[in-house]
């Protein structure tokens, strides 16, 4: 399982109720169901991924996360996860507010755009940076938001949610291994993971 998902999984207590927004092929939920007996469900837009989830026994709804999140009653879940998707969301404040309305806690992870290699690329080449975490040209990227760890902390104050815990990691895009960055995370972390409430 992807390194950031391993960290997210370690934050979730056994038996919890979990919603994974943009769950892909249900990797995290499948692991959590098996290892922590959680009650989980996912939301995913792509039909082939939805099919894979259901095939594996992971409940999932096909649809847009911004719309699907609306129908749940308040506090339906213990955790609502948004992993590596925030940078693609059109209205992040609204989504995070919904996340915390239907869940007691939220977990958000995203690629950190203030990592040294991103900074260096822009400075040295003058082109929009392309990294292993964000491997797209400006014209074909699904990632419409440029976010840094510091941005997210500032955003939490503006939107009015609490950061309970945060971990900065250095890992490749889909890599299973990585390390936790404690020294100058804004410079050395490729991803940030936040537990919010």
């Amino acid at each position, binding site marked *: 399982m992807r390194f950031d998902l391993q960290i997210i999984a370690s934050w979730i207590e056994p038996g919890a109720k979990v919603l994974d927004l943009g769950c892909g092929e249900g990797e995290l939920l499948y692991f959590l169901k098996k290892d922590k007996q959680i*009650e989980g*469900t996912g939301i995913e837009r792509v*039909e*082939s991924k*939805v*099919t894979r*989830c*259901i*095939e*594996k*026994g992971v*409940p*999932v*709804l*096909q*649809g847009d996360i911004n719309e699907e999140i609306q*129908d*749940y*009653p308040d506090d*339906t879940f213990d955790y609502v996860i948004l992993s590596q998707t925030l940078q693609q969301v059109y209205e992040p404040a609204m989504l995070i507010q919904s996340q915390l309305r239907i869940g007691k806690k939220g977990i958000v992870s995203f690629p950190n755009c203030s990592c040294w290699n991103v900074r260096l690329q822009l400075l040295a080449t003058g082109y929009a940076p392309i990294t292993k975490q964000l491997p797209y040209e400006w014209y074909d990227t699904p990632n419409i938001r440029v976010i840094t760890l510091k941005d997210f902390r500032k955003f939490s104050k503006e939107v009015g949610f609490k950061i309970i815990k945060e971990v900065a990691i250095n890992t490749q895009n889909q890599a299973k291994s990585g390390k936790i960055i404690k020294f100058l995370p804004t410079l050395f972390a490729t991803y940030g993971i936040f537990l919010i409430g």
Partner: protein
Amino acid sequence: MSEYIEHDKAGVSVGLVEKKSFAFAEPPNEMILESGARLGPVTIAYETCGELNDDKSNAVLICHALSGDSHVAGYYSEDDPKPGWWDIMVGPGKGIDTDKYFIVCSNILGSCIGSTGPCTYNPKTVEPYGLDFPVVTIGDMVKAQKALLDHLGIKKILSVIGGSIGGMQVLEWCVSYPEMVVSAIPLATTTRHSALAIAFNEVARQAIMADPNWNNGDYYSGAEPDLGLAVARMIGHITYLSDESMRIKFGRQLQDKSDISYNFDADFQVESYLRYQGAKFVQRFDANSFLYITKAADYYDLEKQHGNGSAVEAFSKTKAKFLVVSFTSDWLYPTYQSRTMVQALKKNGLDVSFCEIEADWGHDAFLLPSKSLTAMVKGFLERVNNENGKEENAL
């Protein structure tokens, strides 16, 4: 639904099956219908495949649509040319695995393929019922299925599965007998027909009733309203396909000719196809049954009948786990109807999965071979079967 009795390409089949029947509601203990009318005796034709396990926890009920029957899978005899109507889905190792589950499929009340319907003899007059047959509802069909399951000693159904009008029965099961239904797979269906769906059904019924042979439903001793029923079936077939599927399947191609004939023969392939489907259908289906079943489907309104107008309230009665599936080109039961259903299920905090399958084949897509549909049905059933075992142990 159309007839898509396809043979399994790998030749895998549940093998020989036998049509059985179960009779109940013998007067004076007639079945009391939703309309208040009494009906009895009632015969329900049914078939089973697979083995019921010792704790009777592996029963799967399949509900057929408008023109289907109890013959869901397998063959009646060694030289039977065609298997049951969902043989691609039901069999050993298939989506609904007969090695694991005990499958029950019965012919719906009001139909004409073994169960009591308008063409059955009325014990009071010793004539076929015709229009003396009381109007039955989806609720009545389900009530008759419940009587059958009671007879088979099944107290819990691992999953109720069905598409179209069969899907309506699935939903009805969930809210009428919530204690019995562990999970449900409603495919290409709705909690209530749209005006469009009712409109098509009405045109089809009018075609039957306008046929002079229909004779107010009293035709069993003479010529039958074949023309009317064939036209009704042709209309049905249009609604089961889609613009896309018709374009791919027929386009404007001519049937056995190089140019148009300047008369009213079937010039286009699509005309010839519809005429063929209509003519074939009248050989196996009763016109009055068509009237009764389409009316039952039009009357069905889960919101009104079970939730004072609210789907959320209606589904608050069930505890089942759901797999809802719709198809992109289905204009008879469009995806928005499935989404409304899913929304109401979510608002009740139910375990629900939903997938809209990209398919060009219109409403009929649910009967056609689809790897993803098969994989999902299989995975979903495995999960609910596992969880069912665990929950039972926990109790």
